[in-house]
């Protein structure tokens, strides 16, 4: 039974459309007779209408009006419910039965499949194609926008755009067909050949090539850096040498010299060990030097210096030492050298000889002062000092080294000298610092004090001094600033105040007078320049002073622009002014008097005012008088039209616009346009300009060579477009402006996608063949 029903329902699905218009009450209406049907239906309708009156919408049943062959027994209709019949509705009863799984599956598949949309019609497709193609083309074209804009705004365009490369033949071509004729040419050729100068590219001789290859960039850089360093070191050493040369201390130089000698000796020793032959040569040299010395008799006590020293030696320890040293040197030089290995013993021997040679005085003193070598003593003391005081970690190793060196007998003097040198250095630096700090300190105290602590001290001192100075300067500044503005403030203030005080009352005076006079006098008199009674003013000023500001305010409104010319400029005079100024005033007055006398006849201001008045009158629109004498009344000689008539026929002219010079008392503006100049003037602002001053500026800058230098003239007159006669100007190309042109040719692109064209074309071909 259910299977039957299902089959039926499937059938119904297939005939859905027919089912739609099947009415529900088909069976009912079908069973009835046609004849009495009408009355029944009328009645039914009436009933329905009545029942629908209650507001609730009753189900509207579809009505069937024509017969149909297919009649569904299930009475399925979508019309009644107002909804479409959905597949799911039909499947609901199937859910219960499991035997119809396959059908169900098929139905589900049908449901899941999407319907294929109808293909668009041909026009639509073409339109879409076109739109896509257009967008693509627009994109391609938009790359030209900047180029076009640039060319449109360019100051100058030179056509043709592509640069023609000058047709210059390469040099080898020129050379191949050319022979040296003159001797000079031959000489040059020989030279070139000698250097194996190649003719073809690249034009480099083998040597140049090698040199190019020899050095890579990094190597060259390293070389350069090395050279730079060497140069820097050299300059550094030079500077050092210069510095040392400047040192005036004899002791220092002596020490240095001695050190050098020692060093030479040491080197010689080493040389003797390493290379006896060289040492022998060296020895010979020394011998020669000795001989020279001996011949010159330089180091004996016969020199000027030596004599002076000998005198001083009695009292001065240093002088004595110098003497001794010289003697020692002399001895050393004059002595004939024997075998080098016995130098130590000889040294001992020399001392003895020295004692013999040295003058008695020197020796005596030395013996008195200090038995052993004074150099030794000093070095010991300094060393101990250093060891005790110096706590700097940097300088620690050096003293240690000295101590080590002290243990060795031979090298000790070298260390001594070093120490001495260092001392010198320190002293020098300290001296400099002290000079900076402007602290005069005894040099002796520095020796005893620790160097580092002294540094700190000196720095502190410097700082303190600076602070002091700063403070002082600041104070000074502040005071100066304080004083100067005060002075300035004090100075201008009276100046400012004075004129105010002087002027105000006077102006008030004149205005007051004006007012008074204005009340009294008529219009004409006002324009005339009026003499001002100075005496009166001076008398009145003190009285008016307290209420001057008030009055001034009042009067300011009363200043009439018309009368600006006629009012006299206020003279700078009052009771407060000292007598000197009065004198000056007198001078001025004299001057004015003279000028007045000179130009007694012409009153310029009055003339001007008169002229202006006339101009104003002339520019005023005229009334039109239309009275006809003798019209409507008696006429004749001596008879005038009556006032009434005149009034009646007088057409008053409308008042024109205010004159531009109405508020400018000392200016007269002619408002009539000059036709002759107007013909040469631009009436409206031309298009690209937005302001008249822009346009005026372009006009006012001359471009001719009369006003500009040649260069500027050329620049100003460059034409916008330059073309060369006889040169073909090709259309702009992508390569000209730096773009890469499309690699594919247009033709190949067509042949790649010929689909639509060929089909259409084939059709046409067919058609034509048929025809």
């Amino acid at each position, binding site marked *: 039974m259910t299977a039957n029903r299902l089959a039926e329902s499937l059938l119904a699905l297939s005939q859905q459309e027919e089912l739609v218009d099947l009415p529900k009450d088909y069976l009912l209406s079908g069973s009835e007779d046609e004849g009495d049907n009408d009355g029944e239906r009328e009645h039914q309708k009436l009933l329905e209408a009545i029942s629908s009156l209650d507001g609730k919408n009753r189900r509207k049943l579809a009505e069937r009006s024509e017969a149909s062959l297919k009649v569904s027994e299930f009475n399925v209709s979508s019309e009644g419910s107002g909804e479409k019949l959905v597949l799911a509705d039909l499947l609901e009863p199937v859910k219960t039965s499991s035997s119809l799984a396959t059908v169900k599956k098929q139905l589900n598949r049908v449901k899941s499949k999407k319907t294929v949309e109808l293909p668009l019609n041909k026009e639509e497709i073409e339109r879409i194609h*076109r739109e896509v*193609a257009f967008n693509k083309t627009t994109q391609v074209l938009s790359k*030209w926008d900047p180029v076009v804009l640039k060319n449109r705004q360019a100051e100058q365009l030179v056509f043709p755009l592509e640069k023609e490369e000058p047709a210059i033949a390469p040099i080898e071509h020129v050379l191949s067909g050319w022979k040296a004729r003159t001797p000079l040419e031959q000489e040059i050729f020989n030279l070139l050949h000698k250097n194996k100068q190649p003719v073809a590219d690249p034009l480099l001789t083998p040597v140049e090539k090698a040199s190019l290859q020899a050095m890579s960039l990094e190597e060259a850089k390293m070389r350069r850096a090395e050279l730079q360093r060497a140069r820097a070191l050299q300059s550094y050493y030079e500077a050092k040498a210069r510095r040392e040369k400047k040192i005036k201390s004899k002791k220092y130089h002596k020490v240095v010299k001695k050190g050098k000698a020692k060093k030479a000796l040491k080197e010689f020793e080493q040389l003797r060990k390493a290379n006896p032959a060289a040492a022998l040569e060296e020895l010979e040299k020394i011998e020669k030097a000795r001989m020279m010395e001996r011949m010159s008799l330089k180091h004996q006590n016969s020199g000027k210096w030596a004599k002076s020293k000998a005198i001083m030696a009695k009292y001065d320890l240093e002088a004595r030492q110098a003497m001794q040293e010289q003697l020692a040197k002399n001895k050393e030089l004059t002595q004939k050298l024997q075998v080098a290995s016995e130098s130590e013993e000889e040294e001992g021997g020399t001392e003895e000889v020295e004692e013999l040679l040295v003058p008695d005085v020197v020796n005596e003193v030395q013996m008195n002062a200090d038995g052993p070598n004074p150099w030794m003593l000093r070095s010991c003391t300094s060393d101990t000092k250093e060891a005790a005081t110096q706590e700097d970690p940097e300088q620690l190793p050096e003293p240690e080294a000295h101590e080590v060196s002290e243990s060795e007998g031979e090298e000790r003097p070298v260390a001594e000298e070093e120490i001495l040198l260092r001392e010198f250095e320190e002293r020098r630096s300290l001296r400099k610092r002290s000079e900076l700090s402007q602290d005069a300190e005894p040099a002796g105290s520095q020796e005893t004090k620790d160097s580092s602590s002294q540094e700190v001290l000196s720095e502190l001192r410097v700082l303190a001094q600076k602070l002091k100075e700063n403070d002082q300067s600041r104070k000074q500044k502040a005071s100066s600033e304080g004083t100067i503005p005060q002075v300035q403030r004090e100075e201008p203030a009276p100046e400012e105040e004075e004129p105010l005080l002087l002027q105000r009352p006077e102006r008030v005076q004149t205005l007051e007078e004006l007012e008074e006079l204005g009340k009294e006098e008529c219009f004409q008199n006002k324009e005339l320049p009026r003499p001002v009674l100075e005496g009166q003013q001076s008398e009145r000023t003190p009285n008016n002073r307290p209420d001057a500001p008030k009055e001034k305010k009042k009067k300011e409104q009363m200043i009439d622009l018309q009368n600006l010319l006629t009012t006299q400029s206020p003279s700078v005079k009052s009771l407060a002014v000292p007598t000197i100024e009065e004198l000056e005033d007198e001078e001025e007055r004299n001057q004015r008097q003279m000028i007045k006398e000179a130009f007694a006849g012409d009153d310029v201001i009055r003339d001007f005012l008169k002229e202006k008045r006339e101009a104003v009158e002339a520019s005023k629109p005229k009334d039109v008088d239309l009275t006809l004498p003798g019209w409507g009344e008696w006429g004749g000689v001596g008879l005038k039209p009556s006032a009434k008539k005149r009034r009646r026929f007088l057409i008053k002219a409308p008042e024109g616009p205010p004159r531009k010079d109405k508020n400018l008392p000392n200016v007269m503006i002619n408002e009539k346009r000059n036709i002759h100049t107007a013909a040469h003037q631009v009436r409206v602002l031309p298009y690209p300009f937005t302001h008249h001053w822009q346009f005026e500026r372009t006009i006012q800058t001359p471009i001719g060579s009369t006003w500009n230098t040649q260069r500027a003239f050329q620049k100003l007159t460059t034409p916008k*477009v330059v073309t060369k006669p006889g040169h073909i100007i090709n259309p*702009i190309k992508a390569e000209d402006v730096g773009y890469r042109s499309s690699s594919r040719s247009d033709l190949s692109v*067509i042949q790649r996608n010929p689909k639509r064209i060929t089909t259409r074309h084939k059709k046409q071909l067919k058609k034509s063949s048929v025809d």
Partner: protein
Amino acid sequence: MKVKMLSRNPDNYVRETKLDLQRVPRNYDPTLHPFEVPREYVRALNATKLERVFAKPFLASLDGHRDGVNCLAKHPKNLATVLSGACDGEVRIWNLTQRNCIRTVQAHEGFVRGICTRFCGTSFFTVGDDKTVKQWKMDGPGYGEEEEPLHTILGKTVYTGIDHHWKEAVFATCGQQVDIWDEQRTNPICSMTWGFDSISSVKFNPVETFLLGSCASDRNIVLYDMRQATPLKKVILDMRTNTICWNPMEAFIFTAANEDYNLYTFDMRALDTPVMVHMDHVSAVLDVDYCPTGKEFVSASFDKSIRIFPVDKSRSREVYHTKRMQHVICVKWTSDSKYIMCGSDEMNIRLWKANASEKLGVLTSREKAAKDYNQKLKEKFQHYPHIKRIARHRHLPKSIYSQIQEQRIMKEARRRKEVNRIKHSKPGSVPIVSEKKKHIVAVVK
């Protein structure tokens, strides 16, 4: 006693050789050279007057055709060579320097509708009323050889125009549809249509060479993309467009010569509003060609005159006419931008200077400097009424002159009516359409 003397460095005033120019010291102190503006104004005025005095643009007339000249073509590599096709099917090749005809070919029966040269200049193509496309060698036949085309393509319909690709062996013809041909084949490799109407001319874009523009007699201008083998867009104007021409320096700009006496410059990316409407002709504009610099173009009109327009101005800067010149059918601007050729109904080709008062031949540097200076002065003072009046003044034949007056009256009447209509209707109900938009009917995608 010491005598003070003037001493000068002789280098400042002695010439090295007597051929050198004498040194003239100048003082540029502005107070020494007053009235610079009035003086330059006078110079500008004189320059303008002289320009008009020397304005003699007509150079030569090439006569020989036995019917109206229908089409012209430039040789791409040779400035002196010009090709022309006449209404009796005759093609002539001219030498401009000698001003004579160097070759005559009876190419077609009936009109020669179109002529174009190959980009290399070795051959040229013609289309005619006899439904054929013919390719000819540029050089004449040898002694004893027959004058015959290299190739002949027999078409099914009449071709009305032809243009050659700027870089490749491809050409395009137009008639009922736009066909693109490979030179080696007898069938078009591509044909594009949009609607059914006879297309009067087709032009390749010289910059982006795959673009084409055509104009048909149903008042529209259609753009095509050759590579995608599809039309791009169509704009419909008030009246028929006779021909178009692409700007050789600006890839997306083209100008259309219209029957409604105007020319329209379009940006092909925005066809709904022309960039500029050029109006001065008093009859249908038949042909247009761009100056190779892309700054100006020349148009030929049915009103027996040719006019030169700057691309950014709506009014022409120059008008050329002669008594004998009839309706001008075709016009070309030579590739060196110095000359203009026009072919007209009365069988002549005329050669004009592009710049009417320009001196031909080699100029000395001083002449050149003076020319540049005068040009700049004219530019500077161009807005001054006197100068403007003189520079603008042209003598026109009576027919054109009266036509201009008449059209001015008509235009004024139309404008007045429009104003009145706006005035007497509800505000906003009558839209105010700008002159540019007025002539565009529709843009079809």
